[in-house]
């Protein structure tokens, strides 16, 4: 088994596990993103829907594994892409089918809304300042590269293939050397701004604070990854280190998010089924919230029915385009 095949099978296993977990990664109040009566998951129609879903996803995982093994020898990069895409596409298709079947069991729309009348709980917590600390990492890396400029080779790798071998190189120029660090610092700032937008543009719930904590942790993660990538011209860092840190971070975030989302004691936003499309797209022009809690997974999604959401989205896309331009 070559490394591309191993990496592809690992990706199939990871994506497949996420797909199997997907219907469980939500509040007990929802099943396949449909509002269901209390205890519905344990009922016969609920269990039958989950059984059908799992059975189809397992078959999709097995089929994906066969396909990637078949193409990994000749097209290793394509194998990795297929390894992530095939189980995800099959899982989403099965999810939407079950969602459609479950609509007949949907609970009546919740009408009761509760709100805190204290204004102070709307203030940003002080620990948000900790998110500024990792911004020092790319700065320190840039200072290190500048101090060791003479040690940087005339050409250095900037991209690696599925087999772990470099497949793209860059010449030693200030733009090529500092580009990843600038991009990383920009991404960290974008993430921080996104966290602030979610905090002020969503309802006051405990999940809002939990998401903010995860975003602060993500700023640290991005700081580490982009600082590592930025140091590659001068320091040899094994690819495995990047993969290990990424997998560890992803696993920790998923585990923490799963614990919060599936906790029956956690309050759930009373959004109505009729405004959710494909289980994950929310569009309600009557709802002044810009961000709402996802029904599947952990975190927030944008309310496409709010004009402010489109402005934010445009700002986000413009910011990302600017960053990509800087990185080039």
């Amino acid at each position, binding site marked *: 088994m070559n490394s591309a095949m191993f990496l592809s099978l690992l990706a199939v296993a990871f994506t497949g596990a996420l797909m199997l977990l997907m219907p469980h990664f939500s509040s007990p109040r929802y099943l396949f993103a449909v509002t269901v009566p209390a205890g519905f998951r344990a009922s016969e129609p609920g269990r039958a829907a989950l059984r059908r879903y799992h059975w189809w996803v397992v078959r999709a995982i097995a089929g994906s594994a066969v396909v990637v093994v078949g193409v990994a020898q000749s097209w290793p990069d394509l194998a990795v892409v297929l390894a992530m895409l095939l189980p995800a596409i099959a899982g989403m298709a099965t999810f939407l089918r079950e969602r459609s079947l479950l609509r007949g069991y949907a609970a009546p729309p919740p009408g*009761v*809304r509760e709100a805190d009348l204290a*204004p102070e709980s709307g203030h940003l917590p002080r620990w948000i300042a900790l998110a500024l600390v990792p911004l020092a990492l790319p700065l320190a890396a840039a200072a290190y590269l500048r101090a060791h400029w003479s040690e940087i080779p005339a050409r250095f790798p900037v991209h690696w293939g599925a087999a772990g071998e470099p497949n793209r190189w860059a010449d030693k120029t200030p733009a090529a050397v500092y580009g990843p660090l600038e991009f990383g610092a920009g991404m960290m700032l974008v993430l921080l701004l996104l966290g602030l937008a979610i905090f002020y543009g969503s309802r006051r719930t405990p999940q809002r604070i939990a998401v903010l904590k995860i975003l602060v942790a993500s700023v640290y993660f991005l700081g580490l990854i982009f600082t590592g990538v930025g140091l590659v011209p001068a320091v040899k860092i094994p690819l495995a280190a990047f993969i290990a840190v990424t997998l560890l971070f992803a696993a920790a975030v998923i585990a923490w998010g799963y614990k919060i989302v599936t906790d029956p004691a956690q309050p759930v936003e009373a959004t109505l089924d009729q405004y959710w499309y494909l289980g994950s797209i929310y569009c309600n022009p009557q709802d002044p919230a810009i961000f709402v809690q996802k029904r599947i997974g952990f975190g927030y999604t944008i309310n496409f029915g709010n004009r402010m959401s489109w402005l934010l989205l445009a700002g986000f896309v413009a910011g990302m385009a600017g960053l990509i331009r800087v990185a080039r």
Partner: protein
Amino acid sequence: MPPPAKIRIDLNSAVPAYRQIVDAVRVLLVEGALPPGSELPSVRRLAMDLGVHFNTVGEAYRELAAEGWLDLRHGRGATVIARGLPAAAPERLQEFRTRLRSLVAQMRAEGVPPARIAAELRSLTESLKS
């Protein structure tokens, strides 16, 4: 430390949302849960938390301000102010009597004994400080 004051509305109710907000906040004001000087969330924040239009909360705040409970300053949200007790006009007393009569009749029609209704009314009246 007392728990933070909360309001609850039912969007499926026949009573308009702005009326439910006015009634719920007024109960807290009369009971003293929101003493003078308390700041209420901004219109934008409360509308977002309740999932209703900004105008719904704005209308509720304006009505409470017209009753003398709130001071609304542009950009500074709503602040509870000290309010003197006005003398209820005879026609308003008659209106309240009609509403109470209708409510008591509904309670009786649904099987609540008269003694229980009297006890509930007494308990509610005693819990109001002003």
